[in-house]
């Protein structure tokens, strides 16, 4: 799981995590290295702790053992170096328009109004939302809300982008469009992206590498797949299907293992 000599953008070393002392370990000996500029997808069975990994990397939770690094610095709490796109669009501020939401991080950073408006416009253009910038979140569709979240995460120029199943609640058509947009944006902005999903096809469509987690509790990385398929990737190709089947087999195996463990308890 090494990054081949290059300093990792995100790094996990033998990390353990539990929600409270005396409760089961959610993650055990979790180790992972994500390369700078890489689009890394984390896949795993339901309840294996994917979102926990993102929460720890974002600084919302702390590991109880081992270390978690972002750009070679220990993660001690949330910070501007790691932008987050949440699964639910409820992180958007309902009293601010799309433009004002995207401006918010710049306002916190103390950037002058004129400049922050310019940067927010640019970010909204990047996600194709410039014609809806004066709408409030309640006036936007699910896809538009996620685009607004993405624009807000992009506007700060954070080197790391953490995305927790951002397209899970969207319809298939909107999801495909947003996936294509995200690939385009990631290639253009060269961010390091950690993207959590439970959708194998989404993982293959987006990822440079895919990490498959074991079933919880005491989850860890089971296997990492390098995805070398040319972009844009479409489900119909034989190579896509072959990779899909390999990952599916591992996931099915993990789900079976989890069920057997539950039965034995």
């Amino acid at each position, binding site marked *: 799981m090494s990054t081949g000599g290059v300093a990792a953008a995100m790094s996990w070393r033998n990390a353990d995590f539990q929600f409270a002392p005396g409760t089961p370990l959610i993650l055990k000996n979790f180790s992972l290295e994500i390369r700078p500029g890489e689009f890394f997808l984390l896949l795993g069975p339901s309840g294996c702790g994917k979102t926990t990994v993102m929460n720890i990397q974002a600084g919302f939770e702390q590991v109880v053992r081992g270390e978690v690094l972002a750009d070679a610095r220990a993660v001690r709490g949330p910070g501007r170096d790691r932008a987050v796109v949440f699964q639910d669009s*409820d992180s958007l501020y309902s*009293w601010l328009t799309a433009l004002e939401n995207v401006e918010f991080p710049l306002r916190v950073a103390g950037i002058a109004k004129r400049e922050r408006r310019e940067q927010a416009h640019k970010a909204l253009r990047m996600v194709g939302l410039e014609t809806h910038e004066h709408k409030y*979140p309640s006036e936007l569709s699910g896809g538009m809300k996620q685009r607004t979240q993405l624009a807000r995460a992009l506007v700060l120029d954070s080197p790391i982008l953490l995305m927790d199943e951002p397209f899970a609640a969207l319809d298939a058509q909107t999801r495909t469009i947003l996936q294509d947009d995200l690939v385009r944006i990631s290639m253009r902005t060269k961010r390091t992206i950690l993207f959590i999903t439970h959708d194998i096809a989404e993982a293959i469509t987006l990822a440079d590498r895919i990490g498959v987690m074991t079933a919880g509790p005491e989850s860890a990385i089971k296997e990492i797949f390098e995805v070398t398929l040319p972009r844009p990737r479409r489900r119909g190709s034989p190579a896509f299907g072959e990779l899909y089947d390999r990952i599916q087999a591992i996931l099915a195996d993990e789900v079976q293992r989890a069920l057997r463990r539950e039965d034995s308890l």
Partner: protein
Amino acid sequence: MPQRFVSEQVLSRPAVVMPRPISPRWCALAAGSASIAAFVLLWQLASMREATILFPGPLATIHAAVVLLREGVLSQDVLISLMRIGVGFIAGVAVGVPLGLAMGAFRPIRIFFEPYIQFFRFVPAIAWLIPAILWFGIGELSKIFLIFYTTIFLVLLNTMIGVSSVRRNQMRAAQCFGANAWQRYVWVVLPATMPYVLTGMRLAMGNSFAAVVGAELIASERGIGFLIVDSWMWLAADRMFAGMLTLGLLGVLADYLFQALSRLCARRYLMRG
């Protein structure tokens, strides 16, 4: 003769003119008017079963209101009651909102004040009528105190609930942007709490109109509450009903104005996520 497609046949038919749907606004107006007319009719019918002196009908009530207006009594009573409601309500909001914000955000403050809030909110304003007169005298202060007492708990509790209902992801997002505790409080907690504050104020305003009657019940010489009680003492039920009707109408008007002002000044805070 060339064959015609089904679609051509359909298109060549004369268009069926559908009746224009009635606009929802007209529907609402018609339903509202019908509701009022039905109420007035029922009131009139019910009053005809009793003596006018005990149960005046709508016409007798409106006539009494016109007489009271001509005498200058009603307008003076309305102004005095509105003044008492206004001062007591504003004082209740001025104390309730900051205290609710502090209690919602800081646990020690919440732990300190919560037992008293929980205890006193179950003691109705009317129970404080006599102590208020003993402490503050028969002047304006005792009446304003009762309105203040009625307002503060509703505003405070709603504000406190609002602060604790801020969405976790909104706070987490602000943390990711590097917002410090003060910025999170001012830019996230306060705006997110606004709908709760406004709801508390609206509920408290309604209760203030109810409390003013109690406040003016004794040791008062003016106000709508006094008008209602004084009319009853003289068995002038039509004047009493006129006072009650005025109070209700003023409450509805105040609520309408409050909502209109909220939409005008705080529309963005009333947007759902």
